[in-house]
């Protein structure tokens, strides 16, 4: 299949990109790695008048250490993230989730920011960003603003990014010394997550000192499993604690129904996978 015709702009600075976006009006589409957008264009599910490519803006790529946080450029590829020791050290959950995304070719092109901005509820990075309390830096005609992950994801394929705004980078508070696991459940290696669970814990002296758990594809946006977190923190890091805590995994979710899973099965999976994710994260 072949995309509809569009104009193409490849600005070399962020300012130029913001300007190009303003000039282009509502019909513009930003292309990051293009791994979600290109198929959409090919199937003509979207026909933008202008495509603005962020691929030629070096400042949007890379991971830097910013004291108590990592700052991940929106255009950093999944592959780069997997090969960045800083991420493994301070945001292990993101590395674990990134490793499960699609396949090597797609990880070479696809970007961290692109995945978050696309906001596919089955996307694997959203829950980790939410769990770790990531903050999005967004640039627009009126300057920059920060949005917390919890406010960033608004609905299916919908974020708080305005049509004239660009995601610049993602600030991830360091979770050094935490252990993490992303438990993904899909039907084949290529298939999207039916449900997945992102879990990060800090175990101190055999007890769970802190816990962050978030769910993929249990609602139109990623969901923080606060009930699970509450039931974990301050308790012994053992099988019984985890099993009991995981029972609360589906609280507050509104899972979709499709051919792979109905709401019952998704809720059940959320509990089972939460138990497994936390068990793996805590090394129990």
């Amino acid at each position: 299949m072949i995309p509809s015709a569009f104009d193409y702009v490849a600005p070399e600075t962020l300012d130029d990109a913001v300007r190009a976006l303003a000039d282009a009006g509502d019909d513009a589409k930003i292309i990051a790695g293009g791994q979600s957008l290109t198929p959409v264009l090919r199937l003509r599910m979207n026909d933008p008048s202008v495509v603005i490519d962020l691929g030629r803006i070096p400042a949007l790529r890379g991971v830097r250490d910013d004291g108590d946080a990592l700052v991940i450029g929106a255009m950093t590829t999944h592959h780069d993230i997997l090969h960045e020791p800083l991420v493994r050290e301070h945001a292990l959950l993101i590395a674990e989730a990134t490793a499960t995304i699609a396949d090597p070719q797609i990880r070479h092109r696809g970007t961290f920011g692109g995945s978050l901005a696309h906001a596919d509820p089955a996307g694997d990075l959203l829950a980790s960003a939410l769990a770790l309390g990531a903050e999005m830096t967004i640039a627009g005609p009126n300057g920059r603003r920060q949005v917390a992950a919890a406010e960033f994801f608004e609905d299916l394929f919908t974020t708080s990014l305005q049509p004239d705004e660009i995601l610049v980078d993602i600030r991830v508070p360091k979770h050094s010394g935490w252990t993490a696991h992303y438990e993904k459940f899909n039907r084949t290696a290529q298939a999207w997550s039916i449900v997945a669970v992102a879990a990060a814990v800090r175990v101190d002296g055999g007890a769970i000192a802190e816990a962050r758990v978030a769910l993929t594809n249990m609602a139109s946006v990623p969901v923080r499993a606060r009930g699970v977190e509450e039931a974990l923190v301050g308790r012994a890091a053992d099988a019984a604690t985890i099993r009991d805590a995981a029972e609360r995994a589906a609280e507050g979710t509104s899972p979709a129904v499709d051919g792979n899973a109905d709401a019952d099965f998704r809720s059940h999976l959320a509990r089972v996978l939460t138990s497994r994710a936390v068990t793996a994260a805590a090394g129990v």
Partner: protein
Amino acid sequence: MTAVAEPASSPAGEFGRSRARKEDAHLITGRSRWTGNLTLPGMLHMAVLRSPLAHARITGIDVSEAKSMPGVVAVYTGADLAEEQGDLPSAWPITPDMKKPPAPALAVDTVNFAGDAVAVVLARSDYEAHDALEGIDVDYEDLPVVLDLESAAAEGSELVHPDLGTNVSATWKLDSGEAGSGGDVEQAIAEAESSPDGIVVRRTLRQQRLVPAFMEPRAVVVDPNAQQATMWSSTQIPHILKLMLAMTLGIPEHKLRVIAPDVGGGFGGKLQVTPEEVLTLLTARRLGKPVKYAESRSESMQAAHHGRAQLQKLTLAAKRDGTVTGMKVELLADMGAYMRLLSPGIPVLGAFMFNGIYKIPAYHFSCSPVFTSKVPTDAYRGAGRPEATFGIERMMSELAAELGIDPLEIREKNWITHEEFPFNTVSGLTYDTGNYEAATARARELFGYDALRREQAERRERKDPVQLGIGVSTFTEMCGLAPSRVLGSLDYGAGGWEHAQVRMLPTGKVEVVTGISPHGQGHVTGFSQVVADRLGVPFDDVEIIHGDTQSAPKGLDTYGSRSLTVGGVAVAHAVATVIAKARPIAAHMMECAEDDLEFTEGRFQVRGTEKAVGITDVALAVFAAHDMPEGVEPSLDSDVTYDPENFSFPHGTHLCAVEVDTETGRVELRSYVAVDDVGRVVNPMLVEGQVHGGLAQGIAQALFEEAVYDESGTLLSGSFAEYLIPTAADLPSFTTDRTETPATSNTLGVKGVGEAGTIASTPAVVNAVLDAVRQFGVRDIDMPCTPMRVWKAIQEGAR
């Protein structure tokens, strides 16, 4: 592991030799010749506008905007082509009163499935042709959509084709009592039901819809400008295609040439005469310019024919000792919206295989092809035989479970023993040879059956969340789609012969022409080995010519595991003819009697002497023709059409271990052993490759793949994002091995292997899944056995 039995000795040692393929060189370097690679001067590109609706009346089409778009040369609708497009062929009228709707290439009044072609654009480029599709405006009036197979067959259903008055096209029956091949099944069932010593097992099993999903989407190019119109097509059947196009479009057969260049897989999916081929040919002829059509994957999913899609109502009668006394099969087969080339015949092929490898005294089979508002179905790897094997092998395992008998033991109790061949089956076939005991014993040993059973018991005992299941399946299949007289008795539209020519060139090289049309199997390599073996020439001195109706003018192409069993045997016969023609000339050259000559390893040797001439020497002498024996023509060429006397019957035993995560319903394949008996083996590496690929497809049916429609008739699994073909990461390494019981129905002793793996693996996997969860009260799970289905079955069973 792959332990290979020592091949029976052959003169040049080519049989049983794993030669790397001649076909590979251009494929691994990107110098391939796919139809889609072809560009001709002035060539136009065709794009097809397809119906988004499953059933609707076309009340108006406005193409004016499309016609004015850049690069657009022409736009045609069904009305424009109605006169000349004829009716797409359906070559298998299974009963004299079979109902069949008209099947235009381009819809004229109504569209009957989402994807039905409505209009075509011809433009200078592919991009422009696709752009112009958006400039066509079609008005539709919705008609009732018929989706569920069982409801479609019921009285009072909405109709796909109201003119036919029913969705049920025909009913085809085979009854062993009436045919005299066995007893009365109703009596067997009644006896089993009434006797304390009897048992009747009833199940309704579902074969889901599948997409053949060859990797190369279909493409076709037509050059109408030569003396003959030339069509390049990504097809399995260049010869049949040429004939069918000539017959349905009224183009003189000799004015048409069809070429199948490199073809990227078929699996039955390219055993078709497609609307797109007809439309490319018609538009190219109208415009007097070459035209190319290359489908996208999405188009392929929603318009190329699908496979399987049956509902099987099965009744098995037996004694409580496990002896089967009767099998009754009532099938509904989903045809989709039209009958394509072989559509209604596919379930009929299954009629002969529901008795499997067993001695079943009484048998009844009936099947009804039923229309629905979906993509037409037709051949998909195995075509009727996987469905039948699934039915009998699931039922044998169900019977074993109900009686508490080991599933291997119940099979042994009922199978035909190796001393009983040739064996006339209850469905009317004669199995020439087989050795089910040997294949099963070998499979059992490689699998570690007893150890796995012990582990299974331990896991059950300790209520492990991950339960082990062991699945058993045997199979046999009828390969070759031959002989012609049998096909005739089934009202099939063609014969089952195959054609071969062997030409000895003056330098001793050999050109072989075959009517087989390969698309990945490795026939060039395998046939070269057959020729090298029989003619005693080097493997590299043989060229195989195929897939072009001009250079390989006669043939019935590739499907039904017929290539080696029919086409390869034809080649061997053509080689024998060459040797026979060379013999008097060799005798003349050496001034001896023909009877004194022995032909071995490419040489005619005078018995008991060192005196000899090579066949290549004879070839040169024949070319010169200076000194031929009286009345002998100077030619070593041969031309053979071979019609086999029987099908061939490969068989095998497959064992599969799965781990079922009872908490999530996920099924993981832990080990898979396939021991197949495909008769004599020419190239073990190619045979293994066929088995591996077949296993992957059969496993995919059991666990992953399904063409799903929504309630409006839209195909939800319309791309590879939703239609889940397993990746390398989803499959284990298979353990394959063979036993070798030569076929007696052909001179090479070969059977067929193309479909074998696909046939046995689906029931083996499903039987394994059920073996794991039967303890929870589960007796069946629809395919594919998705995590949700398995988990729900456990929940419901355990209730």
